[in-house]
């Protein structure tokens, strides 16, 4: 029938359902854009304005940069930063890649146990890990030195973590699990037929690993190295705790020192911060370029293949020994030294005498101390609120980026990943400066920490949500629309339930990293808003090593329990963490 004859068009009029969509989408976009852009803009603005008295308009100048780069020490600072970052990333990469290859590609024994244990260091807060290594590797009281000196009857200093190599070593060890996870993913994605073809051509296992596996995973390997390098540049705990006492400064510790001197030199800190930001951004840009190019001539077929492990033959046991050594070093020793010191009245090197003075006093102190109880509550509240807020907001923005055809959705994608280039300390600095200038009443409250955490971990939420969003077939939503469901009904009843595994996994991950967070918190906390990692820092500064150890042990136990519960729960929900 001719449609022109009767024209009873149903006009689409705005009804509550559409207002709801506008509201939810609009609010989420605003939050993300505000969080991602404001600190960046303000930090840049601040860095080009000279330090003047409050209340006057600061003149635009490059004085801060001139100050920084005219200093005699700056050349050394840049060089030390690069040496530290290169050293740390190479150590992490070397260990992580070896472990990943063994774990993914060979028939080494006890693989499952190793996999579980080797990611434990990711749970240990950086500040605890570094302090544990101080107790192990300090020239005077370090257990390793004490033991070796007793063994060889000498006063030779075997290891000294208060040095650039020491810093790089400790930091590299702590982040080896990150390299391990990234390289495992790369090895897992590779078609084993490529290796088998090399084996069939008569190549040895070592030659296959070197000439085929590593070459094929080169884009992934280089991307991993860059990420480790940028992350090491941003590392705060090892440079501050190990480097500053030894007079070694890198960007992060220099920023911290500039703010913690009297009077605080915020302009200088900003200039350092912008320099660090520029290097980090360049590194991550390069990394994304490599990843994008790697994807084009990918070795990944995506077909359902079952990787066949390479037979190590008589090397199985030696390789297992390497594993055990690694686990002992990275998981065993630091945990044991913290455990030992947590049962002491005053810190003492382990000995028969010291065994007699074992005490539960530090635990009594930790459990009774009111500011520790408050810090625990603060940390839990922040972790829960941050993880919940991020996962909900990014589920909406990821929907816009992945599913909608809204204009500017790729810009939203770029904007929302800006926080990833912010070193924690620089982000803390930017947020501190901004809320000092723009007084909305959150400075010095938990809210400013909340803002910092949400900003800092936003990209993680996006990563988790967009991965699972991509896996949701477009037609699953379209069929809901054809069933008459509004956007909000579709989002709530179809999209969110389908996202659940990713939501849960991301939530747990963000909750854990929130509890560990130190480098932003250290600039933003105030009296009454300390968090656990800050309390550990303060205990260290006060020399309360045994109490610190007790708190650390409790924290590690609690976080490990959380991860275990999550894995259990995750098994049922189909969640995979990391």
């Amino acid at each position, binding site marked *: 029938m001719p449609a022109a004859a009767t024209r009873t068009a149903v006009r689409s009029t705005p009804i509550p359902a559409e207002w709801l969509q506008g509201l939810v989408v609009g609010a989420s976009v605003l939050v993300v854009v505000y969080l991602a852009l404001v600190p960046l803009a303000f930090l840049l603005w601040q860095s080009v304005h000279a330090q003047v008295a409050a209340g006057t308009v600061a003149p635009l100048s490059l004085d801060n940069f001139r100050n920084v780069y005219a200093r005699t020490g700056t050349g050394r600072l840049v060089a030390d930063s690069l040496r530290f970052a290169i050293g740390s990333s190479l150590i992490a990469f070397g260990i992580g890649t070896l472990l990943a290859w063994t774990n993914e590609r060979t028939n080494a024994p006890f693989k499952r146990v190793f996999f579980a244990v080797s990611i434990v260091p990711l749970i240990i807060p950086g500040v605890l890990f570094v302090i544990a290594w101080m107790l192990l590797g300090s020239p005077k009281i370090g257990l390793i030195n004490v033991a070796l000196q007793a063994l060889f009857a000498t006063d030779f200093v075997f290891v000294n973590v208060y040095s650039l190599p020491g810093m790089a070593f400790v930091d590299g060890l702590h982040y080896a699990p990150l390299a391990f996870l990234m390289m495992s993913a790369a090895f897992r994605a590779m078609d084993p037929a490529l290796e088998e073809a090399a084996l069939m051509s008569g190549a040895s296992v070592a030659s296959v690993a070197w000439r085929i596996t590593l070459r094929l995973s080169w884009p992934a390997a280089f991307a991993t190295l860059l990420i480790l390098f940028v992350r090491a540049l941003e590392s705060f705990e090892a440079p501050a705790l190990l480097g500053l006492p030894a007079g070694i400064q890198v960007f992060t510790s220099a920023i911290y020192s500039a703010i913690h001197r009297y009077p605080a030199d915020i302009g200088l800190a900003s200039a350092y911060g912008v320099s660090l930001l520029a290097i980090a951004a360049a590194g991550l840009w390069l990394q994304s370029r490599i990843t994008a190019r790697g994807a084009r001539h990918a070795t990944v077929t995506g077909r359902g293949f079952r990787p066949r492990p390479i037979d190590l033959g008589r090397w199985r046991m030696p390789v297992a020994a390497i594993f055990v050594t690694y686990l002992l070093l990275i998981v065993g020793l630091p945990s044991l030294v913290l455990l030992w010191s947590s049962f002491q009245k005053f810190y003492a090197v382990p000995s028969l005498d010291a065994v007699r003075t074992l005490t539960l006093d530090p635990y009594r102190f930790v459990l009774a101390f009111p500011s520790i109880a408050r810090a625990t509550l603060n940390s839990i509240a922040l972790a829960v609120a941050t993880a919940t807020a991020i996962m909900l907001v990014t589920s909406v923005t990821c929907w816009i980026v992945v599913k909608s055809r809204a204009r500017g959705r790729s810009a939203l994608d770029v904007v929302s990943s800006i926080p990833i280039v912010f070193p924690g300390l620089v982000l803390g600095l930017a947020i501190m400066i901004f809320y000092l200038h723009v007084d909305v009443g959150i400075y010095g409250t938990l809210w400013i920490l909340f803002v910092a955490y949400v900003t800092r971990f936003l990209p993680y939420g996006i990563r988790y949500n967009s991965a699972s969003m991509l896996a949701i077939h477009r037609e699953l939503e379209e069929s809901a629309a054809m069933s*008459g469901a509004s956007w909000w009904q579709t989002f709530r009843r179809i999209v969110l339930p*389908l996202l659940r595994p990713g939501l849960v996994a991301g939530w747990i991950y963000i909750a854990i990293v929130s509890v560990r967070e130190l480098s932003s918190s250290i600039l933003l906390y105030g009296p009454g808003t300390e968090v656990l990692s800050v309390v550990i820092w303060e205990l260290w500064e006060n020399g309360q090593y045994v109490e610190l150890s007790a708190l650390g042990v409790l924290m590690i136990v609690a976080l490990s329990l959380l991860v275990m519960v999550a894995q259990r729960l995750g098994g049922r929900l189909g969640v995979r963490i990391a």
Partner: protein
Amino acid sequence: MLSVRALSTDYTDGRGANVRAVQELAFDVQPGKFFTLLGPSGCGKTTTLRSIAGLERPREGEISVESTVVFSAAYGVFVPANRRGFGMVFQSYAIWPHMNVYQNVAFPLVAGRRRIPKDEIRARVLRVLDTVALDDVATRDATTLSGGQQQRLALARALVLEPKLLLLDEPLSNLDAKLRERMRFELKRLQRELRVTTVYVTHDQSEALALSHEIGVMKDGRLVQVGSPRTIYGRPANPFVADFVGTTNFIRGAVTSVQSGSSTLVVASEIGSVTALATEPLHAGADVVLTVRPEDVELSETAALGVNTWRATVDQKVFLGEAIDFRVRIGERLLLARTHPRLSTRIGHPIHVAIAPEKVLALRAGDA
């Protein structure tokens, strides 16, 4: 019932170039009829279906159902998909994995702003599940169903609202060959029983021929022929349709004479003089393409007499079980013929070819 007028759609591809997916499309579907859009991938058939569904917003044109305009570029009307009240079965079935069979089917009844009492929902869900023979698995997890069951579940979900229009996007393409054939019968039975107006999209010509009341063949975003399955197969309007629907032999030639008062003409072709049928007026001298279906090429070992007979040699043959495909050579020209398997002439041996004049269609060369 459904009326599509002057529909045009374009979209920007990955590199920002404008792609014209559908151009100036127009067709009507009568109430209760099964209409199929048939064409190769990328011809715009799915875009057209999605435009009718409201999942895609066309650039130009008008779509109306019964007397309701659901899309009109000129009047700025665009009713969103969730208010059109059509049922749709997707290529992937789009079964929601977090719901069981019952919940999947009940969703259209509880979504939107409908307020339907609980027991009525229950009754309607069970009734439609019964129609597609899934009533015994109502409480099962939707993901545990077999391919054929998922397909029927998707159909039940699309039918539960008793839609004015049912849209099907290659619903059988994910099934294996045997199941596909069974579901074809099932789908046809359901559609004829429920008399629901249906638009079906497929690239599979045998599906289109088996199911439809009417077929629209599409190419490069345009409809090139609309007609009943018999017309489409037996009287293709141009070489593209002849080639796409079924297998065919093409022979080039030029018209030498036209018999006045009838549509029979004589063509000088690659294989000599051929008497053929014209579906449109052609005059002497026109360049034509002759098309003959393989099953209309008759082979025999004894000599044939009359018009359209040739002597040929067997070039190649393929045994298919229910038939044999012969490739025979007439001069330099190869011709495909499908015959009963009892014919067993050896390769290289001579054979006689005969084609009934009404089985040779002369189509204007250069068309589509």
